């Protein structure tokens, strides 16, 4: 499928104000290792560059439709393991993971303050500009039109489902052993 790539690349670097910029660790579907990329978010387009000074993006991830599936993952590049939880951005499950490099940019990408998503409109991910360590559920930051991962009850439901599934799996495996 074709895309007007030259104009899209131009959009990445033109002077329209970005929603968020910073270094992230990116791991894609094909390449199993993490790479540090300069990332620029403009509306529903997340561009990534080799370097901050690069004139052309290496690629772009169309984020439209992934809003509800923006979730933290519990693994990340070695440099990030520890108390930090890098977020994963997956328009499709397993497409890519993004990790936030520690204190380096001092700003958290993993808690979008809300998603601007009008009916049939463009989704703009609005990122909260608080420190990485803050884990206060973002109740007051809840967007009226879209779910977000800063809300504890939603995270609870999300992981609750996973736990329930794992439990079923475990119970079945226990059952098959005792047979």
């Amino acid at each position, binding site marked *: 499928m074709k*895309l007007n790539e030259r*104009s899209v690349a131009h959009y990445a670097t033109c002077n329209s104000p970005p929603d968020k910029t910073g270094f992230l660790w990116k791991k894609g579907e094909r390449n199993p290792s993490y790479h540090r990329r300069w990332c620029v978010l403009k509306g529903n387009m997340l561009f990534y560059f080799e370097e901050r000074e690069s004139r052309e993006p290496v690629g772009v991830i169309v984020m439209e439709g992934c809003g509800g599936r923006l979730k933290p993952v519990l693994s990340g590049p070695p440099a990030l393991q520890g108390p930090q939880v890098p977020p994963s951005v997956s328009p499709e499950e397993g497409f890519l993971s993004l990790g936030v490099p520690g204190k380096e940019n001092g700003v958290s990408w993993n808690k979008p303050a809300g998603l601007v998503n009008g009916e049939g409109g463009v989704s703009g991910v609005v990122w909260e500009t608080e420190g990485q360590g803050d884990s206060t559920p973002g109740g007051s930051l809840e967007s009226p039109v879209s779910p977000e991962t800063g809300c504890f009850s939603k995270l609870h439901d999300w992981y609750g489902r996973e736990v329930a599934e794992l439990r079923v799996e475990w119970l079945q495996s226990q059952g098959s052993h005792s047979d």
Partner: protein
Amino acid sequence: MRFNEKELVFLSRQPSERAAELGMKGPKKGDVMKRRLVKLIVNFLFYFRTDEEEPIGALLLEQCRVEREDNMAFSIAFLDEAERKYLFECDSQEQCLEWIDAIVKASYEFMRKNLVFYRTEIHRLTGKDPLEQYGISDETRFQVNSGFPPLPPPPT
């Protein structure tokens, strides 16, 4: 430049703002007018062969200019190469105007300008910043004086 093609194809199957069979001609020299199914979905214009499920391509409608070419035709040009135009032919003047209007309003740029416009108006009328509760009121991209072109009229 890489892009997540699979998800873009998935997006092309989502409900569209507008969809119609239109005449379409690409910007290259040998390109000719062909009948295409054209779908506007969020800020993408997808175009399909009329008998195929998978889109031929998509145009990201950011940093572009939509112009009326004649009674029933309009063009889209991107600001990086303004001389390259994609030409579209409609079945009526009314349809042509509807498409132009929808495409102008499709971009994220347009949405943000509207946000800034309403923020300013609400602030003026109520004395309160409506974005304050979302914690994004200090974001520079939502500031009025950030060198944007003049604000568009509010959508009707």
